[in-house]
């Protein structure tokens, strides 16, 4: 039967998107080509929309395809492309297996006011300049956060366990990976949301998609006028209810032989179970029911707007300092009397190169954490409140954990929403994302009167140079003009709890001065005898 094939295709397409998308977040070998990554994510609605607003180019037109597909065939995105949707299907599917009594879905009342209000509040937030709520509920970004925080670490632990086994046989094909991206806020949020979605999908199927998900709501509205849609033939229907038992969206009211098209996610499950073959996928003219206004709904919307405005009041950029991590790394514990006293006074936290400015970054980053997953140095970390309440979980450069590789442009290549724009390797070396600041009184050379220079050692541009100081030692001297703000100095600085050298972020990225150098190797006294 033709519908069976259609359903099969739907299942395979959705699994392919799911596996590929999941893999992007699990790959810890950093070996995926960025073309593959951008192809997999091309159709992700929210990132694509944001990128399009940003760039207006074909490379960001994925959401337009989704709109067209939805206009033609309904919410195919929700059933096939959305990884969070497929995750819910997998959860319901697994829970169904191994049960004696077959679990069934039931028709759910629309409760449309919930999803329209959620969408409205999100829109109000966006219009007032914050995409925080979109970030929290966008299904792709949520899936990204869940994958990175909850699925990636166990995969790496398994790898590290295998490394140990391989090593005992002197095999070094696998290697250990250290997970540096633990962020309590992002982990707790991911856990809560996964738990919530887990529970919803166990109880009610795709309820998240039809109450909370902003993409689901938008596509639901569009699908109301879709050309092809699933419909129940009143003449064929015997009110047996089988279709409604398999409808994970809970949108089939078999008693009245109706199907709520705005909640239908085009999974085609119902079509293949109907014993009368009474459910078909046909071209139908739209027949919208009469609309009437409800004063209760109006009042609710009004209140929601007020609430949203109130929350926005809190969302100011918070100036932040890195919390000293005194006890987290026992081996680096300072000797008594050696602890540094002057805190690093960061006016701005650092955003990735290619993100133009903190404002640009905050306006477009959906906190999907893909950049965190592809950053080989793991310098990109989900932020806590470093970018303010409305920038929570948007990744920042954490120079206490790592630093930005001078030659690396991975994050700029993969960012699906245009928060981090693509830059060439050559251009990246000129982007100044922050400036180096030296705190002399924290420096080992001053406090201990011994040699150090770890900062200058790691500096790729030599904006940190060692110059003569007391007792024949050398002390750092900084040149902020040629500094790119990579944070290698801050990372390498051995002082605790506060660093003696740090990078203060540029709220608007600048261009670093480049010192031109000759590219010839000088020959040095090749004929001369050894001086010993």
């Amino acid at each position: 039967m033709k519908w069976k094939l259609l359903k099969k295709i739907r299942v395979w397409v959705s699994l392919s998107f799911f596996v590929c998308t999941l893999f992007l977040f699990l790959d810890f070998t950093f070996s995926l080509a960025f073309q593959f990554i951008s192809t997999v994510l091309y159709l992700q609605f929210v990132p694509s929309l944001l990128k399009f607003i940003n760039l207006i180019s074909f490379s960001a037109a994925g959401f337009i395809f989704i709109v067209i597909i939805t206009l033609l065939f309904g919410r195919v995105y929700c059933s096939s492309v959305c990884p969070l949707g497929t995750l819910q299907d997998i959860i319901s599917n697994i829970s169904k297996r191994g049960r004696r009594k077959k679990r069934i879905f039931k028709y759910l009342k629309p409760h449309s006011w919930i999803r329209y209000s959620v969408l409205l509040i999100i829109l109000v937030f966006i219009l007032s300049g914050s995409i925080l709520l979109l970030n929290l509920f966008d299904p792709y970004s949520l899936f990204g956060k869940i994958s990175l925080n909850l699925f990636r670490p166990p995969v790496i632990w398994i790898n590290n366990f295998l490394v140990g086994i391989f090593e005992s046989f002197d095999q070094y094909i696998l290697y250990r990976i250290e997970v540096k991206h633990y962020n309590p806020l992002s982990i707790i949020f991911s856990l809560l949301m996964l738990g919530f979605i887990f529970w919803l999908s166990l109880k009610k199927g795709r309820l998240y998609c039809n109450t909370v998900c902003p993409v689901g709501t938008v596509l639901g509205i569009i699908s109301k006028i879709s050309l092809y849609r699933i419909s129940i033939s009143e003449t064929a229907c015997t009110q047996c209810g089988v279709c409604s038992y398999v409808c994970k969206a809970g949108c089939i009211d078999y008693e009245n032989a109706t199907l709520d098209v705005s909640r239908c996610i085009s999974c085609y499950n119902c079509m293949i179970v109907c014993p009368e073959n009474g459910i078909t996928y046909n071209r139908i003219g739209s027949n919208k029911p009469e609309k009437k206004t409800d004063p209760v709904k109006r009042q609710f919307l009004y209140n929601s707007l007020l609430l949203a405005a109130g929350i926005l009041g809190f969302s100011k950029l918070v100036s932040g300092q890195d919390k000293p991590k005194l006890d987290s790394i026992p081996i680096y514990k300072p000797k008594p009397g050696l602890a540094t006293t002057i805190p690093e006074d960061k006016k701005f936290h650092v955003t990735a190169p290619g993100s133009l400015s903190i404002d640009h970054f905050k306006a477009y980053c959906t906190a999907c954490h893909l950049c965190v997953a592809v950053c080989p140095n793991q310098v990109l970390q989900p932020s806590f409140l470093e970018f303010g309440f409305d920038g929570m979980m948007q990744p920042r450069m954490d120079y206490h954990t790592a630093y930005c590789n001078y030659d690396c442009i991975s994050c700029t290549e993969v960012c699906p929403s245009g928060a981090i724009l693509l830059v060439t390797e050559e251009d990246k070396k000129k982007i100044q994302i922050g400036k180096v600041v030296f705190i002399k009184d924290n420096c080992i050379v001053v406090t201990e009167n011994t040699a150090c220079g770890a900062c200058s050692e790691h500096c790729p541009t030599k904006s940190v140079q060692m110059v003569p100081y007391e007792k024949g030692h050398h002390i750092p001297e900084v040149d902020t003009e040629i500094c790119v703000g990579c944070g290698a100095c801050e990372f390498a600085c051995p002082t605790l709890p506060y660093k003696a050298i740090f990078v203060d972020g540029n709220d608007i990225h600048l261009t670093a001065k480049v010192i031109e150098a000759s590219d010839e190797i000088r020959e040095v006294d090749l004929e001369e005898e050894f001086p010993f």
Partner: protein
Amino acid sequence: MKRREFIKRSITSGVVAGSALTFMPYRNLFGAYNNPADPYDLVAIKGGEPHLMFDTAIESLGGMRKFVKSGQRVVVKPNIGWDAPPERAANTNPRLVGRIVEHCFNAGAKEVLVFDNTCNDWNKCYSNSGIEKAVKDAGGKMVPGNTEGYYHKVAVTQGKSLKDSKVHELILESDVFINVPVLKHHSATDLSISMKNLMGIIWDRRYWHRNDLHQCIADFTTWSKPDLNIIDAYRVMQKNGPRGVSVDDVGLYKAQIISTDIVAADTSATKLFGSDPADVDYLKSADQMGVGKMDLKSLNIKKIML
């Protein structure tokens, strides 16, 4: 300390102590020591390609068979600290490393393993330095050193500032340790040569930086004595080290120094670089602690100009 390591170290220290007792008094009698019948303490060679210079130099020391016995497991530790191509001379010359691996196999080594605790992303360092390819082509194996899990604590009993350090398991489990630094300028320690290169076999470098870096480097050489130090001075980073900014920092020296005495090797390389060894604190400390000799006149040195 693993058993294999313990046995190896006991034997080595026994041999060193014994030979010191036997030879030391006579050496002093002669003053400047230069008896061609005795084996060389140090070989310095100049004017050739890195791998060819090594062929000649190791021959003067009696060939690789003197250091590597049949069936032994050898660890070669070049400097692979930075994500930079060979021309920048931030890392040891790949052709030299490849040839050393070949010599080890020719001498009968069962396995030759190469690693470094890199400063930049280790995967990029291994590949962009050219060392990964050179080692694999020669039949050796690259081993990761990127996470703390590979490092195990050892006591540095003779250390003044450094009492213990976490050392890569390869160093603890191999029969032969060949140290292959590149000679270069270093912003923190003036120069990076053989002794400084040992910071790539340990994990907690920040502790060293906090606790008198020069003394820690010297202290560690009382524990870690490479069986052979091969200093690559083919291309030499003269400024902006240890990472360097461009090839503008590099000078072509076409030289190489080989010695079993890590202090003597670094002293001669310091002179080759054009600096005064007396200005390098870790050399002086190591000399005073009896790790090796800064007094090159007391050594039997072979100099070769190709």
